[in-house]
């Protein structure tokens, strides 16, 4: 090691090796083996123990793959559409508004993630808070009278919408904060220079602020998309059985009735690779801007 104090990082390196690198190696190992194969360890050639069987079986789950990436994508886009304007206004407003908005964004994060999601269950249930409220104000009566229907509740829970709502609610701060921190650090003289050269407010935003805030958008997108695509708690609590996502599928293979950690590992590996490819492509896309912020 070149640096004399580099050994200070040894505990962390050890920790990483034990809880990150080792499990990944195990996942890769499991993904390419099966219970039957391993039972014959030493009896058949080692090349026959390693197999692509798990990957071949994955075709059955294409729907779940597609749904996971689709919902995560929708949640990410909604977070971006909600989060960017909020981050922009926060960065432009005075410190009073900034502090208040920051507290409001952070406040839910002081409550446990599962509790927050349980709260949404209570709100969205068929006889939950929201439906009771609609009942109380006579919304259902009104609708039934106009359309001649027989409505007693809105079906909100156990829908894709509820899952997306849960994702957006839980991960929105991870979109707002990186964008905010990039915009607040923008050199004010760049904005003055743009105005000086003849840009009106819209042009200043489109040609200077937005391109220079892309690194924040990229990290925000990453920080929302990755946990969204792999979540299993949100989908189980708000999506029920018919909105199963990759996270639930993997969980089932390890803990559920379908116990098959070899298949579970293979699914996890494929998901990881898809996510990594997405991120590499995106970061490549934003490379120029990344440099810009380093300046």
């Amino acid at each position, binding site marked *: 090691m070149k640096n004399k104090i580099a050994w200070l990082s040894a505990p962390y390196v050890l920790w990483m090796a034990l809880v990150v690198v080792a499990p990944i190696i195990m996942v890769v190992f499991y993904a390419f083996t099966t219970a039957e194969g391993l039972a014959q360890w030493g009896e058949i050639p080692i090349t026959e123990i390693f197999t692509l069987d798990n990957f071949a079986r994955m075709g059955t789950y294409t729907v779940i793959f597609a749904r996971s990436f689709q919902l995560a994508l929708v949640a990410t886009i909604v977070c971006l559409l909600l989060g960017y304007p909020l981050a922009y206004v926060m960065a432009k407003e005075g410190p009073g508004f900034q502090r208040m908005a920051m507290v409001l964004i952070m406040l839910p994060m002081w409550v446990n993630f599962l509790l927050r999601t349980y709260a949404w269950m209570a709100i969205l249930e068929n006889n939950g808070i929201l439906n009771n409220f609609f009942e109380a104000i006579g919304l259902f009566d009104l609708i039934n009278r106009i359309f001649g229907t027989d409505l007693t509740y809105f079906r909100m829970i156990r829908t894709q919408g509820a899952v997306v709502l849960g994702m957006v609610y839980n991960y929105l701060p991870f979109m707002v904060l990186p964008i905010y921190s990039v915009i607040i650090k923008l*050199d004010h*003289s760049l904005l003055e220079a743009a105005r000086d050269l*003849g840009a009106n407010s819209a042009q200043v935003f489109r040609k200077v602020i937005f391109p220079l805030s892309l690194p924040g958008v990229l990290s925000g997108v990453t920080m929302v998309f990755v946990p969204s695509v792999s979540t299993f708690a949100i989908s189980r609590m708000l999506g029920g059985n018919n909105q199963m996502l990759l996270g639930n599928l993997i969980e089932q293979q390890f803990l559920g009735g379908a116990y098959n950690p070899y298949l579970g590992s293979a699914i996890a590996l494929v998901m990881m690779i898809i996510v990594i490819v997405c991120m590499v492509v995106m970061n490549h896309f934003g490379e120029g801007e990344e440099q810009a912020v380093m300046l």
Partner: protein
Amino acid sequence: MSKELIRLSNCTMAFDGEVVLDGINLYINDKEFLTLLGPSGCGKTTTLRIIGGFQTPTSGDVFFDGVRINAVPPHKRAVNTVFQKYALFPHLNVYENIAFGLRLGKTDEKGKKVKLSEQEIHQRVMEMLEVVNLRGFEKRHISQLSGGQQQRVAIARALVNRPKVLLLDEPLGALDLKLRKDMQNELKRIQKAMEITFIYVTHDQEEALAMSDTVVVMDAGKIQQIGTPEDIYNEPKNAFVADFIGESNILDGIMRDDGVVEIFNRKFKCLDSGFEKDEPVDVVIRPEDVDIVPENEGQLKGTVTSVTFKGVHYDTIVDFYGFKWLIQTTDFCPVDSRIGIKIDPDGIHVMKKSHYSGMFGDYSSYSEEYEEISDASIDPEEEEQEGGNEE
């Protein structure tokens, strides 16, 4: 000079009750190179920002070509700015930085949106790259440029819009001395070639004298003097200007008559007139206007306390009756030697007393004998029995 282009009329600027500009009256002619010169905090940058439209004066008016433009936003003004730290767009290359203003689509006099063709943009950008000597750099990223090159891009980016006025806010501050001298000539050349008005902000008096048609010396939010570089240097209006522009010995004197000023109880011929009889005044004597002569021929006699070799000349500090003068001479006078000095009438400049009197123009701090604080009012007879030749 030609016609008036910009006028600041009684402009005052206050931030949170703190006055940074105090009743500025200033007009700027077309095609003029005007410099706002002063120490930091004097209000020069604020003045520039008012002209650029980034600040609106608390009171007073700004006129451009006879039209009041107080409320006109920066993007609708026919001025462009070269910012102190260049403020180049880091996400664009050299070409796109320069083309930025051209791509915005301006509205012409008739209110019609004008969009330049790619071809025209290309031609004008290339033209500007030629002007600032950066041909071949168009694809470079901003981070790949040196400070001097970034400076040139900033100038090109502003000039490509063909503004009537270019505002420059200490544009050479971040460059090293050699490059700064080169860029001074370069800027002067560009200003002549483009035939537009330059308003230049600096705290560097040499820069101001070398480049400007008109220098505006500012301090404490007020204009202290407006004039050509020669006027400012030769005829400073008060002790502040005399001290800020070049080196000056500033002495207390009494105007005995038109053309006669008394310093250290000795009368000197000068060219100034129009003062009250026996009016107390400030007297400026530039270090290069003093001739060193043998002690017995001198109008004043003193002791050399320090000598510093400066290349072309020696900075010689001489103690006259307790007041230390700076004399710049090519003659070497050793420390502790006794010398006399002669000053021609045109080397003496008399100024009215101002609140700056007594604050500047004493070179005690140059001396190693720091404890011997100079005192101009000391009676020379105490120290020096035989006086100089009285007029």
